[in-house]
């Protein structure tokens, strides 16, 4: 089985978020970047499990600049066989999807995997767009995946329950929590990653149809006031006079 796992680079969750140029650019100063956890912990690890069980290969792909190589190497350290970086600064989901699809269309992947969303922009768009562009079935929010021959059985999260779907390869899916468990790279893996191929591909020149104009931070949340359980009168007074909700 030939598997492609598309991975994004995202800020670590503890990063301080700020913007420059009047709110049009994300300020990356002092920000520590990681591989998007949905891509790494669930999509990539499940892909590796499938390979370990049935053979094949796992390729990871990122659309981004050379600065992303450190994040890509982590995927190789965890166990991916090789990596591709499409050398472009991703602007919109459609641009990214077109670049991925353009690369993947001639590679004959049996399975194309994504995280269900990135933890920065939370768009959940790229996977579905790539599936459409490659004319593949797409299963989103998968929390369980078994493959037998060319037939896959997938459980996916739906509101209040689980839906089970069957699909034949080739197909695409997005991974949610539960599909696999995080793997920590070991030292041998980290050293082997330095020797695994990371191919840089120039972008095909997909058109960007959307441009980010402006970012705004949400209003700061006010502090929490703790009230002793026996002091119900004070709680009622605060809800009435300060929070003005009763």
């Amino acid at each position, binding site marked *: 089985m030939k598997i492609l796992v598309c991975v994004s680079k995202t800020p670590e969750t*503890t990063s301080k978020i700020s913007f420059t140029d009047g709110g049009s650019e994300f300020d990356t100063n002092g920000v520590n970047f990681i591989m998007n956890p949905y891509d790494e912990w669930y999509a990539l690890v499940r892909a590796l499990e499938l390979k370990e069980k049935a053979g094949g290969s796992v390729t990871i792909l990122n659309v981004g600049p050379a600065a992303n*190589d*450190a994040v890509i*190497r*982590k995927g190789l*350290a965890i166990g991916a066989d090789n990596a591709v970086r499409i050398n472009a600064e991703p602007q919109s989901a459609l641009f990214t999807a077109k670049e991925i699809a353009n690369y993947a269309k001639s590679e004959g992947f049996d399975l194309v995997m994504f995280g269900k969303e990135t933890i920065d922009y939370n768009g959940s768009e790229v996977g579905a767009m790539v599936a459409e562009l490659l004319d593949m079935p797409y299963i989103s929010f998968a929390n369980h995946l078994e493959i037998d021959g060319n037939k896959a059985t997938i459980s996916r999260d739906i509101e209040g329950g689980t839906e089970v779907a069957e699909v034949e390869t080739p197909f695409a899916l997005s991974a949610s929590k539960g599909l696999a468990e*995080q793997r*920590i*790279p*070991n*030292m*041998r*893996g*980290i*050293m082997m*990653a*330095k020797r695994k191929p990371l191919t840089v591909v120039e972008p095909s020149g997909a058109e960007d149809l959307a441009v980010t104009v402006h970012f705004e931070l949400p209003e700061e949340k006010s502090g929490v006031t703790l009230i002793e359980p026996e002091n119900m009168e004070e709680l009622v007074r605060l809800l009435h006079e300060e929070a003005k909700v009763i």
Partner: protein
Amino acid sequence: MHTPVQEKTAAAPQQAHKSVKTDQYQGHDYYLVDDLLEDDHKMARDAVRDWVKSEVSPIIEDYSDRGECPTHLFKGLAEIGAYGPSLPEKYGCGGMDEIAYGIIMQELERGDSGIRSMASVQGSLVMYPIYKFGSEEQRMKYLPKLASGEFIGCFGLTEPDHGSNPGGMVTNIKDDGDHVILNGAKMWITNSPVADIAVVWAKDETGRIRGVIVERDMEGFTTPKINGKLSLRASITGELVFEDVRVPKKNILPNIDGLKGPLMCLSKARYGIAWGAVGAALDCYDSALRYSLQREQFGKPIGGFQLTQKKLAEMITEITKAQLLSWRLGTLANKGNATSAQISMAKRNNVHMALEIAREARQIHGGMGITNEYPIMRHMMNLETVLTYEGTHDIHLLITGMDVTGLNAFK
């Protein structure tokens, strides 16, 4: 006799009390030392930090309280590659550089000095001498099993009556055809009660110090546990007792004789401790900084008061100096140019720095600082051992003194 196999293969204990507190540790890098590191150093650091947060932090206070070694972590340390990471891949090791090794030790000791000890004894004091002084046959026989955690090793140099003066050892080997007969006793041996093999230093009939690999099942070899430690309580420590142990001559390390052998091993371990101590200091500082911003007195966070800021400012200053010392020592070690005296300086400085920071951090935590809700007292108690083992604080001072004056003040 102790049965190490049972302990080593025990599953993660179900009864262990897991802390419900999330380990909120974040690294601190005031002088952007990260810019001096390679990507694989940072990846190794993040990997070990993730491992410590998921495997060590939830259980360490419980094991430390009970004075029990979390033996199930021996295998986990092997899986992340913490045993002999800078030895060649050919023997199942990491093939990394000395800075990576230091960073791994730092992250482990950020969790607990005892956990770091488990790894640094295996890597620096058991695998390193077998690699450096052993035959190819010995390397192939032992190193892959030590790297994978199938074997646990220990190192026997210190004796009940010979600590800072190891050259005075009385443990000895006598020729007996294809074998040597080993007699004597070693003391304060990390990992000994669970060890499968011991690298033991003993005098031959000519008085030369030789390294001998002793295996668990050899007749006359026992490893009684030392109880009652109030420090490194999550690390298991014991003795090595040899009563007419017949050791095959093929178990003697062929490529070394003299005190230089064990001292080279200690330099390796001290190098790791110099890095490791920074980890313990960082954990104390991180906890103290967070606590100082949350704990309010007189209507504001205690971090807003000058005396707390003095403590925090001095702590991060000393940590930054120690980080730079470690990094520079690492670059020298990578070129093979780090002298044992330079390693002594870093070990002595960084461990003492960490102990002082633990004490200051304890004060910032107030009464909470003496409880096991916070890691401070555990680090502080651990560091009392680290200050003494692998060359005491005073002995390292004399090494520096001798190095700069050329005069020996040991005797």
